[in-house]
């Protein structure tokens, strides 16, 4: 190991990052993504626009309407438009759902005759469509339950759901999303930066300095990796502060675990970027490839959108291939759960992360050729 040589390359990289003003991006990009998406992504459905057509105008139908009016889930409008024009509104994306209460709804209901409520949901955005549908059904059913109790139509007891939301009592979206975003940000930002570091030298010709000198492949990669690593390490703390103070995400676990896992994770992202840089011959290819290969899995397998455990076979395997899954398991633990080092699973995942870094770095070293093509 020639420390002086690595130091010289590092100094050069630092200067270049500083003079090309990329250093601003190193700190701007991660915080920006975290803040925008932290505020931006809302998984919960609220204020869905519901159009109620009340053809009955009875006491019960009004009770139903008011149930929809008094919940944060819906923004209900009650009007007397025709079914067709209501459906047209859905087509124009002016409303999310239409509920049609038939005439003589109350009469039939109390008589025990069959009655039917029509519900039309815009499922163009299927997830939201399904959720809205479920909520609408729930609201109607709970009303019916109330009525049947009132009228003494049911003899049996009622099952009350007594739910405890572990780790996230208030079911806040922030708590569920922001830690996952850290995993995304620390994957994408470092990788994009390093993805160009070597291919840039190849395009320019300065790679000859590496070819012709006695610096080894490992030293060269290390010299490329370390400056960005040091710069990005600060982001671990910056992102932590945003999460805890701006988004009020609780932090229940070990900060040391958070820190060490994040450093390791950054190393993986950097090594991945370098690997792309080693393989690519053109900068543009390196840029597009890195963005494609990091952002999508970063979202998909981060656990933000869906838990890994409920993925299908193939996706399940893919998820296990990306570092983000392991890191996010640890990150969610440090923020919301707090098992820390006492959990063997976390220790195992840390070992996997270490293995990933080692493998990616070695692959980069193996594929980097110290000769012309």
């Amino acid at each position, binding site marked *: 190991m*020639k420390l*002086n*040589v690595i*130091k*010289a*390359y590092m*100094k*050069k990289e630092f*200067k*270049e990052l500083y*003079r*090309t003003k990329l250093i601003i991006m190193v700190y701007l990009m991660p915080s920006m993504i975290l803040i925008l998406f932290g505020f931006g992504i809302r998984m919960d459905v609220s204020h869905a626009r519901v159009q109620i057509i009340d053809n009955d105008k009875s006491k019960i139908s009004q009770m139903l309407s008011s149930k929809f009016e008094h919940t944060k889930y819906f923004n209900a409008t009650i009007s007397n438009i025709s079914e067709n024009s209501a459906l047209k509104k859905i087509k124009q994306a002016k409303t999310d759902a239409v509920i049609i209460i038939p005439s003589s709804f109350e009469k039939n209901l109390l008589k025990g005759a069959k009655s039917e409520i029509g519900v039309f949901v815009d499922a163009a955005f299927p997830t939201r469509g399904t959720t809205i549908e479920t909520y609408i059904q729930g609201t109607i059913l709970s009303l019916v339950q109330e009525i049947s109790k009132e009228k003494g139509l049911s003899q049996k007891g009622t099952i009350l759901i007594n739910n405890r939301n572990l780790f996230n009592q208030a079911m806040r979206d922030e708590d569920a999303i922001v830690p996952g975003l850290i995993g995304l940000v620390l994957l994408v930002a470092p990788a994009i930066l390093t993805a160009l570091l070597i291919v840039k030298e190849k395009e*320019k*010709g*300065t790679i*000859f*300095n590496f*070819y*012709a*000198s*006695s*610096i*080894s492949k490992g030293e060269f990669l290390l010299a490329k990796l370390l400056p960005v690593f040091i710069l990005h390490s600060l982001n671990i703390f910056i992102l932590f502060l945003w999460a805890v103070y701006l988004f009020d995400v609780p932090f229940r676990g070990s900060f040391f675990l958070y820190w060490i896992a994040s450093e390791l994770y950054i190393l993986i992202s950097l090594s991945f970027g370098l690997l792309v840089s080693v393989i690519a011959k053109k900068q543009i290819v390196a840029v597009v490839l890195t963005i494609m290969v990091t952002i999508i899995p970063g979202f998909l397998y981060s656990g933000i959108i869906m838990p890994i455990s409920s993925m299908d076979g193939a996706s399940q395997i893919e998820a296990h291939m990306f570092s983000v899954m392991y890191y996010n398991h640890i990150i969610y633990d440090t923020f919301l759960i707090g098992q820390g080092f006492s959990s063997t699973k976390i220790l195992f995942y840390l070992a996997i992360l270490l293995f990933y870094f080692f493998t990616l770095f070695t692959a980069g070293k193996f594929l980097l050729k*110290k*000769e*012309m093509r």
Partner: protein
Amino acid sequence: MADLEIRNVSVKYKKLTAVSDISFVANSGEIIGFIGADGAGKSSLMHAIAGIIRLSGEIQYRGYTYKSPQESEKIKSQISFMPQGIGLVLYGTLSVSEHLDFFADIRDIKKDTKFLEYKKRLLHMSGLTDFTNRLAQNLSGGMMQKLSLICALLHRPKLLILDEPTTGVDPLSRLELWDILDDIRQKEGTIILVSTAYMQEAAKMDRILLFDEGEIIAQGTNKELLESVRNFTYAKMDKPPDDTISFDKKTYSLKSLSIQHKEPNLEALFFVNALKKNKTLPAIKIQERQSQEKIPQIVMRAEGITKRFGSFVANDHINITLKSGEILGLLGANGAGKTTFIKMLLGLYSIDEGKLMLLDKAIKNSNDRINLKSKIGYVSQHFALYNDLSVRENLMYFANMHKIPIDAALNRIKKYSYELGFDEYMDKFPKELPLGVNQRFSIAAALLHEPVVLFLDEPTSGVDTLARAQFWQILHKLKTKWGISILITTHYMSEAEYCDRVVLLKLGKKIVDDSVENLYKLHPNAKSFEDIFLTYFKGER
């Protein structure tokens, strides 16, 4: 056993054989010169010896044998390699002194007083002492070359491999560079392998290898090689017969001619070899201009043109006129402001002060230039070509952009590729070609649209002798047939003699503006134009 032995080395790129079965030896303190046509295999052999490309055969250096880049790792600390290409190994955003620190560090040099003195000397030699804080991206082409070179010398390598280190470097700096090389080989016993397109330099080497088509076709000392061509070199004939080549006041012929012999120089090797292999470039025929142009008497008049970069004055109140049908040579040391001046003429840099007239039109803003663009041809120092288009496609693109009818364009491209000798490379990509070949088709690109005036910024740097001879013939024919005006910069002082008039720039100021004959009269003792040039610049540093 010799210190460096090259045994049966071949280098292949995919299917193409760049170097085949070359062997030679070199000893401590020797300077071995590589000369030869562009694409003859000089660079490939250098890459092989520097251990950065796969090879077959073997290389032995001071008892250590290597056959692949991996095996060469062990001796890389003793080697220094400077690849071909202007400023190729420099980092745009680092300053001159930061480059020196960086290269010293990656070579693990102890920074003692001895090193600091050596560094100071290198800086002084290269004339970069006053520019230590300037970023590499703001250096002139020649300064970039010098910086790359001194970076390669920093760790006092035992084996120094330099691929055209002096391309684009001014004559004075070239002299100083050779002093340095001479010095380190004596003090350190360094083996120096160097390729060059300047034959005066080649004359200073201990042994010269002449390359052609991947093989060494002749080797020996300067004297031995000159001896081999003495019989074919004659004084220039007015009407030379076919199968002869005439250039630079000499005529070369394999058959004996009835006129007297003349003292040859190394350039003769190229001509004689071309004659022997029957590879002479075709005679140049310039047809009448297809488009008739009325050319004003004064093509360009610059009055008090000034350019400042911050506090640095690159061009200081320069007055130059270019008359119709005139070849004007713009000479000066690296960083004297030649490129800056041309870029202002072209509108690539804004003019800070002064008046500019181009083709009877006062230039005040970019709108004034719109109609002039089709009348100007330009070749830049960093000849810029599209790397993802083949040579043919590049030229077609240029022709199309100049709205040349397709038949005419194809004809002209064919003609120039043939006359400038790059027709065999038409379907290659610029990155795969040697510097000299790229430069040739940049020239062709600048001529395609039959311009009225040509601005040429070091068009012949790195181009081999044969192609340069051809190029100057084209320029002269263009001048007589088309009445074209040419402003050209060059570091080949012999080329200055083909100019009607020369202007010398020094530190941004014009110091000489006169015809070549008058200058010879002013300096009666000068043997060549190089001597005249040096009198203006020597002793200044």
